[in-house]
């Protein structure tokens, strides 16, 4: 509630000073909108609720509802993890990039896999022409995984792996590679993305239909609860939903709707909420509309805490904490005047930090054109370091709290995301909503509206539809050689010659048996197959035959 005397004073200001000013010179636009198309008022006023309802709406850092952050001291205690997503070509070349980034002050590794790996295909599969080593590193067997982490101490470095449909296989390879370094699995720290629902919605690297996919996710939860207790078993991702065109509200709503589905799956598999929920993590995008993004992160935290406590009856505070990784918005980068992207990324990174992120990837200026060069990646990392050490925004917790505008936006985003979740609940949850194409359609529409606003110049993108410059940017681009596939196939063949084929056959047979038994956990047989140097294509092949493949329908 806005106090009555203020409301009246504001009305008088609008009728008087504002009218006089705008009659002399009108405002730049009839409508002011956020990047997500939300109407923005000229001025926001203090709301008494922020004081009266402070404990429910804001609370203290590290306490329910976590609006102001999940840690008690936030960045005064420890900065966010600076984790640059990287990977290309072969394990050897990616290993070199990781070591470089760690030397430069990165504090965690984040692995990008190539598309064949993400879809569970070996590099020699016919469907992989042109794709091996392109958008990430090619991993066929444990042998590649060992090379990927050579010289990187897995007991000290935490690793995030962007892997979804075959997440169980890559996690097993990571565990096995760590064992070879003498690091036992209970000491491993890191994250697998393991969020297959958003693959159906927005990202496209699905393999199996939803039911067996959800079973694999829940098997990973159960296995890690016992065996890899420090591992974050999923990173429920709004990032790709946003990249596909969703608004800020849709990003929060669809991500939390996915979370609800994973939680319900785990609960129906008999896992107790407070045992698996503390290991769930999230991943969001940071776009350039600074204040809307800050509000989005705060709203997501409050909404999740509330869902976990009220809907799922979580008791452990850690189950209610929405911990998240942020990546600056790839889709906001422009191919034109690429240096401008450094500025966009800086604003976006600030949004993530004001929003209380736990880890951050900053994009490189050249990524609208190709994978980033080492120089571009270095500037991106330095951007985080400048924010962390020079800007001063890390000195106090949740510094934008109490901004009349940010608090209002936080309330609006939370409320609208909650309404979307109710809509999805009415459809029977996120899986039916995906199968009906509802979520995809909502995103596609939002993307179209946004795109048209750029096409007709209602929205200015500097260097693209205004302030343009003649000529192609002169910029060195990173290239992945077409020979990578041949080299990768050669390595795979060497592994196949060297390994004990009988052991591989036996491991795959056991996996097939486990796949047919809904009560069995798939992680142990996958781990055994990985140890025998079975390839990702062989392991996923067994699962493909057992579970079938998902086929998206288009209207």
């Amino acid at each position, binding site marked *: 509630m806005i106090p009555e005397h203020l409301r009246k004073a504001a009305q008088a200001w609008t009728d008087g000073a504002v009218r006089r000013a705008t009659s002399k010179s009108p405002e730049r636009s009839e409508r002011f909108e956020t990047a997500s198309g939300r109407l923005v008022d000229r001025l926001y006023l203090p709301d008494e609720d922020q004081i009266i309802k402070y404990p429910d709406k804001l609370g203290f850092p590290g306490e329910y509802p976590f609006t102001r952050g999940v840690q008690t001291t936030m960045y005064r205690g420890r900065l966010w993890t600076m984790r640059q997503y990287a990977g290309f070509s072969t394990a050897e070349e990616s290993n070199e990039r990781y070591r470089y980034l760690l030397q430069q002050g990165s504090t965690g590794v984040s692995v990008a896999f190539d598309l064949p790996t993400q*879809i569970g295909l070996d590099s020699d599969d016919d469907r992989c022409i042109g*794709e091996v080593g392109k958008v990430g590193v090619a991993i066929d067997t444990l042998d590649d995984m060992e090379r990927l982490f050579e010289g990187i101490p897995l007991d000290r470095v935490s690793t995030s792996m962007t892997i979804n449909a075959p997440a169980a296989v890559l996690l097993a390879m990571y565990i096995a590679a760590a064992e070879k370094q003498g690091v036992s699995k209970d000491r491993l720290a890191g994250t697998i993305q393991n969020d297959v629902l958003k693959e159906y919605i927005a990202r496209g690297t699905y393999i199996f239909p939803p039911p067996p996919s959800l079973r694999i996710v829940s098997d990973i939860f159960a296995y890690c609860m016992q065996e890899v207790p420090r591992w974050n078993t999923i990173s429920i991702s709004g990032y790709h939903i946003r990249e596909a065109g969703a608004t800020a509200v849709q990003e929060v709503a669809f991500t939390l709707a996915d979370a609800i589905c994973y939680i319900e799956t785990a609960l129906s598999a008999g896992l107790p909420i407070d045992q698996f929920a503390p290991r769930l993590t999230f991943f969001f995008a940071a776009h350039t509309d600074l204040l809307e993004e800050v509000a989005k992160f705060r709203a997501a935290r409050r909404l999740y805490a509330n869902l976990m406590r009220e809907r799922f009856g979580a008791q452990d505070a850690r189950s209610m904490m929405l911990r998240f990784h942020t990546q600056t918005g790839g889709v906001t980068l422009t191919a034109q005047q690429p240096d401008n992207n450094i500025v966009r990324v800086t604003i976006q990174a600030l949004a993530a930090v004001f929003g209380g992120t736990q880890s951050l990837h900053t994009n490189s200026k050249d990524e609208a054109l190709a994978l980033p060069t080492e120089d571009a990646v270095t500037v991106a990392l330095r951007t985080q370091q400048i924010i962390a050490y020079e800007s001063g925004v890390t000195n106090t917790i949740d510094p934008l709290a109490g901004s009349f505008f940010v608090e209002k936006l936080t309330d609006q985003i939370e409320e609208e995301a909650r309404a979307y979740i109710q809509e999805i609940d009415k459809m029977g949850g996120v899986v039916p909503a995906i199968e009906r194409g509802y979520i995809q359609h909502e995103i596609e529409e939002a993307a179209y509206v946004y795109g048209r606003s750029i096409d007709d110049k209602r929205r200015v993108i500097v260097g693209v539809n205004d302030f343009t410059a003649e000529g192609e940017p002169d910029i060195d681009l990173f290239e992945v050689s077409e020979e990578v596939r041949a080299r990768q196939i050669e390595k795979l063949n060497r592994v196949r010659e060297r390994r004990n084929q009988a052991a591989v056959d036996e491991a795959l047979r056991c996996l097939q048996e486990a796949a047919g038994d809904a009560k069995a956990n798939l992680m142990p047989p996958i781990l055994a197959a990985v140890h025998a140097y079975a390839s990702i294509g062989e392991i996923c092949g067994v699962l493909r035959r057992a579970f079938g493949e998902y086929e998206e329908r288009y209207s």
Partner: protein
Amino acid sequence: MPKGRILIAKPGLDGHDRGAKYVAHLLRDAGYEVIYTGIRKTPEQIVSAAIQEDVQLIGLSLLSGAHNVLFRRVLALLSENHADDILVFGGGTIPSKDIAQLEAMGVKAVFTPGTSADSILDTVSRLLEKQPSVNLHE
């Protein structure tokens, strides 16, 4: 009467289809009949869909960097199937030095990030003018 038939296709393993869907939507709104293949199609599937659907243009969208290999394969298959009257354009994260190479192999236009809707619509209508109005496969 639609202005022309166009297949928008996603070759390879890349799942990023915001651009493909956007262009499909844009062309539909501009009066074309558009068929979208969905993601992860092989060049064989794309060419066979193009012939079956009797389209005049194929728009290939790819962001994974596999464009040189996959666009070439689509063009080769069109030619093998005596369907090279179907013209091909493309889009995605494609470095400028590859664009010349793609154009040399027969891709008629390449749209990179930031291309305006007007420029896409102009190019498409120009390509269709070059098309024989009677389809050769009937």
